[in-house]
C-alpha cells in the first residue's frame, strides 16, 4: 500500500483555495490548511469594533472554510516578518499599498518552511492564471514558485493543467488528469465546481480581505509614514488604529483620531495611556486621541476640533478635558471649530 501523501493548503477563506484543497483531498491526499495573519487581512475588525456591527457577528472565513472541508487549520502570526514585504516590495505595489506579488511569494515561502518543519510533501494554492491583475498571471506563476523556494512542490490544482507538471503530478501523488485548467477572471467554472462539491455557502470574491487594497486605508498608511519622516516601521497598534475613527491632520506634527460611534470610543479608550486624549465634559461627544507632538497652541486647535464633533458644536463655548499620557488632566474652554474652517486636506 502506498504512503498517504500530505499537503498544506493556503486557505484565504475564499472559494478558490477551498476548491483547490478539496480537489486534492478527493485524490486521497491528507490536507491541512494554513492561514497567515499579516495584520492587514482583517475583514472582521471594523465589524468587531463598531457598535452597530455587534448584532450580527462576522465569521472568520478561513476557519469556516476549514470546517467545511473537515481539515485542521494552522493560523500563523507573521506580522513582524511581513513588515519587510510591505515596506520593500521587490515587485512593487498594486493600485494602492498592496504588494500582492511579494505577498504571495512571502506566503508560499512561509508554507515551504512549514512543510519542511512538519513533514508534509507539498503546497496547494487556489491561484488561477489571469484571476488577479498583479499576482495571478501566467508570467507571475513561475516567479512565485521560484522566489518562494517552493519550486515544483507548489501545486495549483485549479489551473495545473495549464502549467508544467509539478513534482506531486510527476510522482503520481496526484493524478494530473483530475486537476483543472481554469483561466481568467470568470467565476463560472469555480461556481460550477462548488455546486458539484455541494458547497452552497462561500465568501464572495471581492478582492480579498486585505486592507492594503483599500484606497482610504492606504492613504492613512502613507500619511502615517510621511508624518514619521519616512520611518516606515509600524506595529500592530498602528495597523489597528488606521482602521478606527475619523483621521484628521491639521498639521504635519499631529493628527486626531475621532471616534465615530460608541464601539470605536470604547476601543480607543484602550489607547489612552499611549496618546493624549480629549473629550467634551460640558456636552456629550466622542473620545479623541491626539497622535504626534502637538504644541500648546496645537492642543487648543485639537480641542476646538474635538468640540466640533460633539453635541456642543453650535455652542459658544465647550469644556474639553485633556488627558496626558501620564494620566494628568486639565480642562480648557474652546469655541468649536466651524466646518468651513476645516479644509478638506485635513481629512486623511
Amino acid at each position, binding site marked *: 500500500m502506498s504512503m498517504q501523501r500530505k499537503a498544506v493548503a493556503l486557505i484565504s477563506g475564499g472559494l478558490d483555495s477551498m476548491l483547490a484543497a478539496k480537489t486534492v483531498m478527493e485524490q486521497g491526499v491528507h490536507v491541512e490548511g494554513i*492561514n497567515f*495573519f499579516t495584520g492587514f487581512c*482583517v475583514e*472582521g*475588525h471594523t*465589524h*468587531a*469594533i463598531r457598535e452597530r456591527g*455587534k448584532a450580527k*457577528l*462576522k*465569521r*472568520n472565513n*478561513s*476557519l*469556516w472554510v*476549514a*470546517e467545511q472541508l*473537515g*481539515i*485542521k*487549520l*494552522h*493560523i*500563523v*502570526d507573521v506580522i513582524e516578518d511581513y513588515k519587510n514585504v510591505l515596506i520593500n516590495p521587490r515587485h512593487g505595489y498594486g493600485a494602492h499599498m498592496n504588494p500582492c506579488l511579494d505577498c504571495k511569494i512571502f506566503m508560499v515561502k512561509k508554507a515551504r518552511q512549514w512543510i519542511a518543519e512538519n513533514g508534509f510533501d507539498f503546497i496547494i494554492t487556489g491561484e488561477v492564471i489571469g484571476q488577479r491583475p498583479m499576482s495571478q498571471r501566467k508570467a507571475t506563476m513561475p516567479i512565485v514558485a521560484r522566489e518562494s523556494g517552493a519550486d515544483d512542490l507548489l501545486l495549483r490544482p485549479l489551473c495545473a493543467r495549464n502549467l508544467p507538471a509539478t513534482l506531486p503530478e510527476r510522482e503520481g501523488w496526484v493524478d494530473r488528469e483530475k486537476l483543472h485548467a481554469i483561466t481568467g477572471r470568470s467565476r463560472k467554472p469555480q461556481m460550477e465546481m462548488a455546486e458539484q462539491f455541494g458547497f452552497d455557502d462561500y465568501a464572495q470574491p471581492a478582492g480579498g480581505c486585505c486592507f492594503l487594497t483599500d484606497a482610504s486605508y492606504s492613504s492613512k498608511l502613507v500619511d502615517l509614514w510621511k508624518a514619521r519622516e519616512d520611518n516606515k516601521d509600524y506595529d500592530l497598534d498602528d495597523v*489597528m488604529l488606521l482602521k478606527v475613527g475619523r483621521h484628521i491632520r491639521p498639521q504635519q506634527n499631529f493628527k486626531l483620531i475621532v471616534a465615530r460611534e460608541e464601539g470605536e470610543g*470604547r476601543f480607543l479608550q*484602550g489607547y489612552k495611556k499611549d496618546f493624549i486624549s480629549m473629550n467634551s465634559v460640558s456636552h456629550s461627544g466622542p473620545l479623541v486621541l491626539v497622535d504626534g507632538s502637538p504644541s500648546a497652541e496645537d492642543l487648543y486647535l485639537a480641542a476646538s476640533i474635538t468640540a466640533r464633533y460633539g453635541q456642543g458644536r453650535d455652542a459658544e463655548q465647550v469644556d474639553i478635558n485633556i488627558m496626558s499620557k501620564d494620566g494628568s488632566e486639565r480642562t480648557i474652554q474652546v469655541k468649536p471649530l466651524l466646518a468651513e474652517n476645516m479644509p478638506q486636506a485635513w481629512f486623511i
Partner: protein
Amino acid sequence: MNKEVLNARRLLCPLPVIRTQDKVKQLQVGDQLEVICTDPGVMQDIPAWCRINGHKVLETISADNEYIVILEVG
C-alpha cells in the same frame, strides 16, 4: 489536569485564536484553558477553531463587554 487563563483582551480576531492555538500547544490533553477576550468575534471563532482541531468548548460567557471561552484540550 491543569487550569490556565489566557488574557486576550484588546486583541481582535484572529489574534485571540492564534494566542489560544499557541497556548494549547503547551498544554496536555484534558487541561482546561479560559480565554478572556473583548472581541465578540471569539464567541464564533474559538469554538470553530476547537471543532476543527479536536478540542471541546466547555462554556462561553459574555458579560460587561468581555467574552470568555473555556475549553478543554483534546
